[in-house]
């Protein structure tokens, strides 16, 4: 029991230590680059949570990240590596905008319907690699990578053909489908923070509950750990692989809808990836694939990303520094083996 508590404590400690180390090294890089780290970090902090607007934008940025992270983590937990979140996100984004624009419905129906469409589209995109893996044992990593490109070109084609509003983007969605929040806007002086955050948090809870509280979750994880034993125990290995990818894809699709119904109200016809899907991988890993961890990681990650321009504006530090810091933090978390070993040793000596 002691060890358990100790263990939990360490698990919380590690990311914090890592974050501090990451920022430290980032500061050193600033110095070497000839920038003022103190001012740099101050403006970075301001840009993250310095004022209501910054905070709002941070929340806005973390919303899709949470969902993307959850999508990655869910697949991970069930032994699958879903690099396809990016593509699933794109089709979800399109589906949400399409439904949001094409239909005229009361908000109570329109919003859920658009979200549903996004989830469904993402799920479909996740189904393909899931099915191919289950049925033909095709490596999901390749298929998801390929599906990303297919999504990229397909969505921009669909936008151009069905909902093109000029200037390389779709028409805006109807008011009734929008997650934009006048209320949040008013309290965060016009940040784009929107109601999607609730969707994201809910999704996080769903993932946690599904995996750790339900018998389905027990199955999904078992299949992830040991397919033979799962089969021996009468579980459907194929079914669970597919299901896992479908659920993962659905989360990713929702991430897309956050952009479509929340941040932008439309979809650009993109010719290159948004990167959110890949950020999702980082967030998931940073959050140790746990729901709460992912939310926190998204906050840090999203915050840093939104704050980067502020840092650039005030202290002239290139925004890329943020990317470096994030990478460093991930490294330190990943290499926690040592930290962990060290801390446990301390714990032991302590008793």
């Amino acid at each position, binding site marked *: 029991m002691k060890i358990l508590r100790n263990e939990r404590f360490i698990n919380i400690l590690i990311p914090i230590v890592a974050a501090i180390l990451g920022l430290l090294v980032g500061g050193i890089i600033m110095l070497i680059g000839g920038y003022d780290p103190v001012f740099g970090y101050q403006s970075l902090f301001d840009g993250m949570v310095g004022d209501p607007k910054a905070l709002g934008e941070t929340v806005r940025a973390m919303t899709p990240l949470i969902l993307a992270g959850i999508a990655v983590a869910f697949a991970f937990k069930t032994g699958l590596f879903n690099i396809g979140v990016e593509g699933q996100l794109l089709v979800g984004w399109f589906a949400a905008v399409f439904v949001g624009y094409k239909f005229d419905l009361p908000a109570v129906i329109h919003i859920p319907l658009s979200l549903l469409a996004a989830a469904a589209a993402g799920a479909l995109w996740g189904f393909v690699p899931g099915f191919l893996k289950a049925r033909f044992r095709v490596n999901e990593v*390749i298929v998801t990578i390929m599906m990303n490109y297919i999504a990229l070109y397909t969505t921009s084609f669909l936008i151009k053909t069905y909902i093109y509003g000029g200037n390389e983007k779709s028409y805006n969605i109807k008011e009734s489908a929008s997650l934009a929040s006048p209320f949040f806007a008013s309290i965060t002086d016009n940040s784009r923070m929107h109601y999607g955050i609730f969707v994201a948090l809910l999704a996080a809870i769903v993932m946690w509950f599904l995996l750790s509280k339900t018998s389905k979750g027990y199955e999904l994880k078992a299949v992830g750990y040991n397919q033979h034993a799962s089969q021996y125990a009468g579980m459907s290995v194929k079914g669970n692989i597919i299901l896992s990818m479908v659920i993962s894809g659905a989360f990713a699709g929702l991430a897309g809808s956050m952009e479509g119904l929340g941040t932008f109200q439309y979809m650009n016809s993109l010719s290159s990836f948004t990167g959110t899907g890949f950020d999702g991988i980082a967030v998931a890993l940073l959050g140790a694939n746990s729901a709460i961890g992912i939310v926190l990681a998204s906050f840090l990650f999203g915050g840093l990303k939104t704050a980067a321009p502020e840092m650039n504006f005030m202290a002239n530090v290139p925004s890329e520094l943020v990317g470096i810091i994030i990478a460093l933090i991930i490294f330190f978390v990943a290499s926690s083996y040592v930290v962990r070993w060290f801390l446990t040793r301390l714990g032991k000596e302590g008793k």
Partner: protein
Amino acid sequence: MSFLDILALITQAALYSAAPLIFTALGGVFSERSGVVNIGLEGLMLFGAFTGIVTTLTFQDSLGAAAPWLGIGLAALASMIFALIHAVATITLKADQTVSGVALNFLAAGLSVFLIKNIYGKGQTDFIQVRIDKIDVPVLSKIPVIGDLFFKSVPVTSYIAIALAFLVWYIIYKTPFGLRLRSVGEHPMAADTMGINVTAMRYVGVMLSGLFAGIGGAVYATSIATNFSGTTIAGQGFLALAAMIFGKWHPLGALGAALFFGLAQSLSITGEQIPYIQEIPNVLLKIAPYLLTILALTGFVGRADAPKALGTPYEKGKR
């Protein structure tokens, strides 16, 4: 254009755009054969492209045509050192290999542009004045059909890539080093009991992947992009990763897969100007390469068999 001309265009373009993938995929083979997952290929490639361009820009006036080659050389070196981060994290510090790879990508993207801004005071470099040019292979290009198809207006780097694939195959399947590398990726404990230094082998594997990916990136930069910005390498690393898996972690398989990509790619681009194919909706042509890959995997290629110990850090006496 005669059918032959069209075909020549396609094969030439294929060889042209496949080269960077081949190099990088070969790098992936080394790393993953030693049991270390390398999602970081993208980042390593990016870092190689960065080094390649910066070097070329710096030396093109003094060295002229030799500059890009020096660039490729230094890129190999730089990315190899960069890969060391991945090695230390995953092998020594037992970090999750996927995590570390992802972090590597972020680091490369951030660092390279950060440095570019620091060096040149802007986010993307000028164009290099001397490139790795497309050439006609002296004698061979004169051979009737074959010459046009395979030996005209293709950068020499493409041939190096192909030759290298065979070399790597020989190394991995015919030499003690190769045997040991594979044993470490299949069953590290067994290798250990046979007195093979698992850690050392894996370090070598990862660093070689850096070396090759670096070359891949530099080749892309000096023969295709001809300048560097944050978006110069956008997904090629992941395509190389896919090619490696597609090729079943086998050097020649990876070569085949990369060429397949290149072919499908150039077909979909050139296709828009070829009678009949022209008729196919543009979007279908665009997604064709990726669809074809999936189909190929599902259909005749069958299931890829990863090295047994891939992704698991080696700890003595762990069962």
